[in-house]
């Protein structure tokens, strides 16, 4: 327990966060690539055909992991937003701002693959169904956080605090959107049974690639997020000594400069 607490504190300081996570980048990327290759080959060529949807259901192996990630990442954005806003943790700011673009990308993937799935299934690329609408609004939330951050580009600390505020508001907002959109469709469309209601996947051969892909996307997220967070820290802390040490190993020059 104590060790865990210490680890947590270490992650909270930019230099040690940078140092520790530097070792994680490569393994995460390799894991992500291996899992993706395995999951997709398994899912696309070996998993059995769906008796209702035929081969088109294979979109599930990218659609659903991306959908899960889009929501999972927003949760992380919200939580690190709270930490950034309340405790002003620099690392939390970095994690938040690093997660947002990846979340936006996964949301976009979800939307696009969903559309590509909708065409063969429903005969239309888009239908204003509750889940799609709320996913679209989730994209707005991501865009909002990114937008407010980039608008204050001359003062990154303030930008991060405001972005954190927006993320927190979004967090409160998320259930409201979810429910209101469900009420809206249930009010207006009566008994429209969503095709994606129960996935009903019971076949392990179908489930396995799905879970593998879910893991792969998580690994990729960790890799990309850490990489972005590191860049973020380097940028915002560029005048600090640890940055120079980390990048150039300039320790010698430093002491020489002091002697002169």
């Amino acid at each position, binding site marked *: 327990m104590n060790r865990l607490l210490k680890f947590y504190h270490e992650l909270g300081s930019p230099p040690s966060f940078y140092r520790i996570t530097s070792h994680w980048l490569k393994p995460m990327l390799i894991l992500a690539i291996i899992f993706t290759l395995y999951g997709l080959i398994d899912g696309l060529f070996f998993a059995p055909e769906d008796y209702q949807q035929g081969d088109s259901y294979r979109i599930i192996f990218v659609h659903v992991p991306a959908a899960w990630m889009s929501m999972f990442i927003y949760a992380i954005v919200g939580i690190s937003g709270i930490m950034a806003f309340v405790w002003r943790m620099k690392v939390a700011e970095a994690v938040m701002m690093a997660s947002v673009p990846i979340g936006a990308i996964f949301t976009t993937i979800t939307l696009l693959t969903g559309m590509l799935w909708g065409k063969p299934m429903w005969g239309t690329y888009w239908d204003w169904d509750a889940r799609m609408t709320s996913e679209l609004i989730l994209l707005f939330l991501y865009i909002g956080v990114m937008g407010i951050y980039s608008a204050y580009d001359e003062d990154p600390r303030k930008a991060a605090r405001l972005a954190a505020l927006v993320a927190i508001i979004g967090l409160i907002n998320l259930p409201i959107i979810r429910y209101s959109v469900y009420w809206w469709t249930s009010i207006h469309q009566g008994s429209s049974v969503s095709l994606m209601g129960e996935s009903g996947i019971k076949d392990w051969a179908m489930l396995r690639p799905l879970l593998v892909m879910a893991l792969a996307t998580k690994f990729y997220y960790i890799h990309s997020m850490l990489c972005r967070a590191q860049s973020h820290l380097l940028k915002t802390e560029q005048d600090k000594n640890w940055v*120079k040490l980390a990048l150039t190993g300039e320790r010698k020059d430093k002491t020489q400069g002091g002697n002169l």
Partner: protein
Amino acid sequence: MIEIFDMGKYDFYVWGSIGVFFFALLADYISVKAKSNHIKRLIKTKSRKTRNRSNQR
């Protein structure tokens, strides 16, 4: 072999989705790398500049 990629005439949708997935993540990967390299280069040139200045003194 062809049939495997045919996806029971859903090939456009299935491969399109896979394409979207890879394209998006590849774009993400490239932009991450570009950003990281850019900031590192910026800091390195800057520290070289300050070092030169202190050497001149």
